[in-house]
């Protein structure tokens, strides 16, 4: 009897941690599918309308996901890291300078366009991002440069996404004022009016953080010898 109750409490503890743990930590773009599944799991377990961590604002905004997303074919690609992060010795030695000097900026790339972001910035994307809802948290994982006032880390193409964290929150959808273009042809009294009113996703940068060497080592990064084409930190001239 006693052992059974202990077991049950253990199981319930495990369940709690499993449903609550991934929320604040891993809210990446490529994991939204997984997250959504865990969200639904969590909401089905606790029948109350409010989740366990109601103040963190993310859970409830995301539990409002309807099931319409299952029909969407194009899902974000999950990262497949087959090898641990390789950091050169020179990068490891100069990373504390960069990580210690706040504030930071990141040049994040989205559809091959660069966006220079700092914490708290308001972004209005030049397009309407599909499959996101108001209140969702995305993680930008492709950056071409990270930096602070005096140091810049430039990737050879992109910076490895395990070196930094940049999260944005979708705050809504805006539209531009209606534009009317008059289309005329020669020798014709008819005028065609073309209307356009595009819609844009607006976002807010929640944090821009560069990981310290200790964190990288904790996450299983491997220190290797310097090579020619590795990412380097440049000091301001």
């Amino acid at each position, binding site marked *: 009897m006693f052992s059974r109750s202990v077991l049950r409490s253990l199981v319930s503890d495990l369940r709690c941690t499993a449903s609550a743990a991934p929320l604040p930590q891993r809210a990446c773009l490529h994991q939204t599918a997984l997250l959504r599944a865990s969200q639904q799991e969590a909401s089905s377990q606790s029948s109350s*309308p409010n989740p366990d961590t109601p*103040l963190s*604002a993310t859970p409830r*905004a995301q539990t*409002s996901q*309807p099931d319409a997303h299952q029909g969407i074919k194009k899902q974000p690609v999950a990262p497949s890291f087959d090898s641990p992060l390789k950091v050169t010795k020179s990068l490891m030695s100069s990373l504390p300078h960069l990580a210690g000097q706040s*504030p*930071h*900026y990141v040049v994040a790339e989205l559809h091959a366009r660069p*966006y*220079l*972001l*700092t*914490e*708290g*910035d*308001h*972004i*209005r*994307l*030049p397009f309407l991002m599909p499959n996101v809802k*108001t*209140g969702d948290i995305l993680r930008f994982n492709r950056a071409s440069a990270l*930096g*602070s*006032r005096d140091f810049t880390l430039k990737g050879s193409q992109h910076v490895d996404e395990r070196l930094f964290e940049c999260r944005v*929150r979708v*705050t*809504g*959808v*805006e*539209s*531009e*004022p209606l534009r009317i273009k008059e289309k005329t042809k020669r020798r014709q009294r008819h005028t065609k009016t073309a209307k356009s009113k595009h819609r844009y996703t*607006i*976002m*807010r*940068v*929640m*944090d821009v953080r560069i990981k310290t060497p200790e964190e990288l080592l904790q996450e299983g990064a491997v220190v290797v010898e310097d090579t020619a084409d590795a990412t380097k930190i440049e000091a*301001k*001239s």
Partner: protein
Amino acid sequence: MPVKGIRTVTAARNGVGAFILQCKRLDFHYCNFGGSSRGMLAFLTQTLPRFAKENPQIEIRVSPRHQKHPMIKGQYINGNEKSICVRNLEPEDILKKAMILKDASGDKLKRTKKPITSLNESVRGIWSPYHGDLRGV
């Protein structure tokens, strides 16, 4: 006194910490008699309860407006109001219109050229012509 403090107010950055939906209230107006309200009546009975449950942050009011086309009005936190006429629309289209009002920020529609607006100072500083070594032509 060597240094004095200057009193200011911190600026809000909605979404950095907590996120507050800017749409505060949605008013649904319908007419019991008019034919343009047929879709709206179906929407009110079928879809609205679910919509309200999914968005508990929004206060929802339903009220009749006789001899008028059905309307959805959104009240926003900044005090603005946006309204959409939904005459002769099907319930699915009305839901889309309600979602437009829900996602809107309440600001006036503007054309902007730059994608990013920031309160922060430039991280790397502003370029100065008086610094750095002279470069010959």
